[in-house]
């Protein structure tokens, strides 16, 4: 949504969500990998990372890394998107990634995102508010 791969005013269809890059395609052994996702309209780089079950440790490691890299808090914005994850997305993810029921799980996951679209929209508006204090940082 932030990169405008999905419309922000209209609810996307399941196909649009399923066709997003990396959507429900991260194997369990790749959890924690930092992936470059694109550049937004303000030339900020956007990255995605799955924190996995040990969220606290992974997040702390990410902060530690950024600190070691010499980045300050105003240079980077870490958004926790888990707050918008509902039961349908969780069950869908479990079926697809853990049980191997990819077709069912992926669709259930996409359905959960469409159903909870309002939450993602609120999250996006908060991010854009927070971005006002952010300095542009290129790759």
């Amino acid at each position, binding site marked *: 949504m932030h990169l405008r791969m999905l419309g922000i005013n209209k609810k996307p269809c399941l196909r649009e969500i399923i066709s997003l890059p990396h959507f429900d395609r991260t194997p369990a*052994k*790749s*959890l*924690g*990998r*930092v*992936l*470059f996702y694109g550049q937004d309209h303000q030339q900020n780089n956007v*990255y995605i*990372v799955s*924190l*996995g*079950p*040990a969220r*606290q*440790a*992974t*997040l*702390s*490691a*990410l902060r*530690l*890394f950024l600190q*070691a*890299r010499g980045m300050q808090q105003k240079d980077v914005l870490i958004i926790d998107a888990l707050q918008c994850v509902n039961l349908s997305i969780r069950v869908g993810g479990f079926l697809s990634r853990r049980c191997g029921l990819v077709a069912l799980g992926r669709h259930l996951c996409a359905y959960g995102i469409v159903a909870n679209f309002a939450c993602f929209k609120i999250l996006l508006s908060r991010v854009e508010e927070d971005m006002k204090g952010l300095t542009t940082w290129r*790759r």
Partner: protein
Amino acid sequence: MMVFHSKVGLAALVAGLAFVHKNPEVVAVLCARLWPQLVAPGQYVSLKHPKGTVICFCSGAKPEIVDNLFFTAGEVWGANHLRAIYVQEGFLAKWRAFLFSKMPHQRRLITSELRTIEHSIDWK
């Protein structure tokens, strides 16, 4: 910068201390003193080394995720000066570390960690 990480943090702390202070006596004393700072996943201890900083990190139940993060973040953001090393812990490490922090004279509690220190690790 060098990051040693392990599930409980004990092996990471011992490895980090051994890397900075080569003397096992000093390692044992500092280990008992510093381990209480590593009780929860995500906590870390920072040590000074003449060539840079050594971090001892408690990575929790899934150290491979932390390993993935350090590895790919280094690739994406070009941090070639950072090296993350996972150190395996011995049996019941959390309990042994807890007891050792209370009884620092009982060095046999951390014998397995002291034994597995790799002195051949180079600074990157």
